[in-house]
């Protein structure tokens, strides 16, 4: 009898319905993407550049050869972590606009662990720095949590302000207490070789950070959808009053989601320092936190969707360099394309119309 019930439940969602849903989503993203690329093309065209050549160069720069592809994957690592950090917070209905600041603090903490300890074996030192990054990122959410939970101040403005404060604070740290007199730039001392992430391909920057990011995607999926705590976070995010009435630990969930979000982006900072920069650089992030925010939105906070979105962002970033150097089209056009994509991503009319049309066609 129970079995019958399940069979019935399965069958009621017919394959046609599934197909309609899938195609709807696909077409929706396609439309949005075309709009974004089209707007970018129009702007290029109006300013006398050749959009087709620019996009071709973009593609070449992102996937043109093995090195490029590997570098694109490497660039997407921080985007993946930022996207996941955003997803965890948004799933719990927390508007964490402070990813950027948490990234700085996490990166600095990882760098600190990297240059302070020098006699550790890599097997200890690498994870130590990562943990430092996670803790740094998580700690930076605590002031916001205090204001939100004790004084009911919405997190929007405090998270934003803490971004600026974090950037300045790390600038201060590398200018005074942790200044490296030998550094030719505003940065901390170099981290020990034992803290650097092993590379996967010589000549490219891709390193085990990429593997960590991929693993993290699956871990996050498992965590959010298959564990008790993940269930709590999602229910609190869907309806906090319901979660409270049902006896779920609402405060703990908010706390966890915020600190986890900060921890993940802090880990992202650690991976950047350990895998790429090799030291903490003042102002090293060019808005990865914001990218993460947008990636999470485009991916609808789903870890599996974060991967292709982050890859897309990484490809845009990497390809833009080649585009600029080969065709002279400024990289800024890519920022516009990325922004436009997000402008349209929550637009509902496309989805509704596509679905309506498909239904009619399917019937």
């Amino acid at each position, binding site marked *: 009898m129970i079995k019958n019930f399940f069979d019935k439940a399965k069958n009621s969602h017919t394959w046609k319905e599934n197909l309609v849903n899938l195609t709807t989503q696909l077409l929706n993203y396609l439309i949005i993407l075309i709009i974004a690329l089209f707007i970018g093309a129009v*702007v290029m065209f109006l*300013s*006398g*550049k050749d959009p087709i050549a620019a996009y071709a160069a973009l593609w070449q720069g992102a996937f043109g050869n093995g090195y490029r592809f590997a570098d694109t994957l490497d660039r997407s690592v921080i985007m993946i972590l930022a996207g996941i950090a955003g997803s965890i917070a948004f799933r719990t209905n927390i*508007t964490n*606009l402070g990813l950027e600041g948490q990234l700085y603090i996490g990166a600095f903490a990882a760098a600190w662990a990297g240059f302070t300890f020098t006699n550790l074996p890599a097997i200890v030192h690498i994870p130590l720095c990562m943990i430092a990054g996670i803790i740094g990122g998580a700690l930076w959410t605590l*002031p916001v949590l205090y*204001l939100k939970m004790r*004084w*009911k*101040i*919405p997190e*929007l*403005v*405090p998270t*934003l*302000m*803490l971004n*600026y*404060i974090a950037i*300045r*604070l790390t*600038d*201060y740290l590398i*200018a*005074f207490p942790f200044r490296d007199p030998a550094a030719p730039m505003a940065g901390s001392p170099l981290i020990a070789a034992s803290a650097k992430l092993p590379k996967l391909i010589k000549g490219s920057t891709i390193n085990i950070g990429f593997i960590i990011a991929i693993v993290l995607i699956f871990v996050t999926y498992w965590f959010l959808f298959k564990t008790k705590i993940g269930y709590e976070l999602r229910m609190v995010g869907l309806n906090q009053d319901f979660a409270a009435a049902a006896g779920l630990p609402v405060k703990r969930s908010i706390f966890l989601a915020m600190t986890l979000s900060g921890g993940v982006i802090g880990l992202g900072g650690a991976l950047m320092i350990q895998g790429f920069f090799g030291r903490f650089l003042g102002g090293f992030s060019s808005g990865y936190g*914001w990218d993460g*925010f*947008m990636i999470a*939105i485009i991916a609808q906070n789903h870890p599996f969707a974060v991967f292709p979105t982050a890859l897309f962002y990484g490809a845009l970033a990497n390809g833009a360099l080649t585009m600029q150097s080969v065709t002279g089209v*400024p990289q*800024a*056009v*890519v*920022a*516009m*394309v*990325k*922004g*436009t*994509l*997000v*402008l*349209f*991503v*929550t*637009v*509902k*009319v496309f989805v509704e119309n596509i679905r309506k049309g498909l239904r009619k066609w399917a019937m």
Partner: protein
Amino acid sequence: MGNVDLSSILTLSLFAAALRMATPIIFATMGGIFSSHTGIFNVALEGFMLIGSFFAVLGSVRTGSPYGGLLYAVIACLVAALVFAILHLELKANPIIVGLAMNIVAIGLTNYLLTATFNVWGVYKTDLIIGFQEVQIPLIHQIPIIGELLSGHFPLVYFSFVSVYIVYLVLYKTPFGFHLRSVGENIDAAESIGVNTKRMKYYGLLVSGLLCAFGGTFLSLSYLTMFSEDMTAGRGWLAMAAINFGRMRPVPSMIAGLIFGFADALAVRLQQFGLPSQIVVMLPYLMTVIVLFISAVVAERRKKSLVAKQNKIDIATPLQP
């Protein structure tokens, strides 16, 4: 350095600088208030201002007059606000996400156009940009202290304060403002008396675009006469904090804007004490958080004392009316 005492910082020019630095924040704040009262929390203030800054410079170069620049900025910002409005009101997109995306598009667009139109990177400054001139107020500028404080500012500085009064009058004293606020507070009520709520939301967004155009123009044609990328540098976010602090009321929000401007101006001068520049430039942002915190504490205190009073009356009076 070193032997500088505080009194050398608290000068008239500090307060004058505070006024200047607060001006763009106040414009954006008033714009944000307008849309907030229609129920849309506009997070695109930063982007609107940036677009305004760029087009003000473009307009000034093209027309050879700062007023031409202002006109360009207004048109550009109204278009940007219209895009926001259409995406949110017609295509039903999430306003917060649209607003944040707007900011990112604004940075990309202005950077791109800067390179594409003027063939420069990062910053554009030439003699072709005609900025506003400071105005001396007759009579007042001869009064010793007050004259120095009040006179000799850019027209837009004065206008920012005028705009606070106008926004207050429009929102609280005219039927239009009356209807507009009802949309944000109880949209059903507005609809039931036949207010076209969607149109009101359009107005709210467009006015916020308009005022951000003034803020942006001030930055690029008064405060400075140039455009540089991302030159709004977070002033739109500060405006949001000011709105938050002032609970959408024009005058308290303006005061918050002045506080942030003062913090900015003070930060510039505190370096004379030998404080690390990195710490000092944190001040406005730190101040924002502190102001939010204090206002929350004060609000709770006030509520508690109010409640204590009411509950006392409650208990003292018999149960039945």
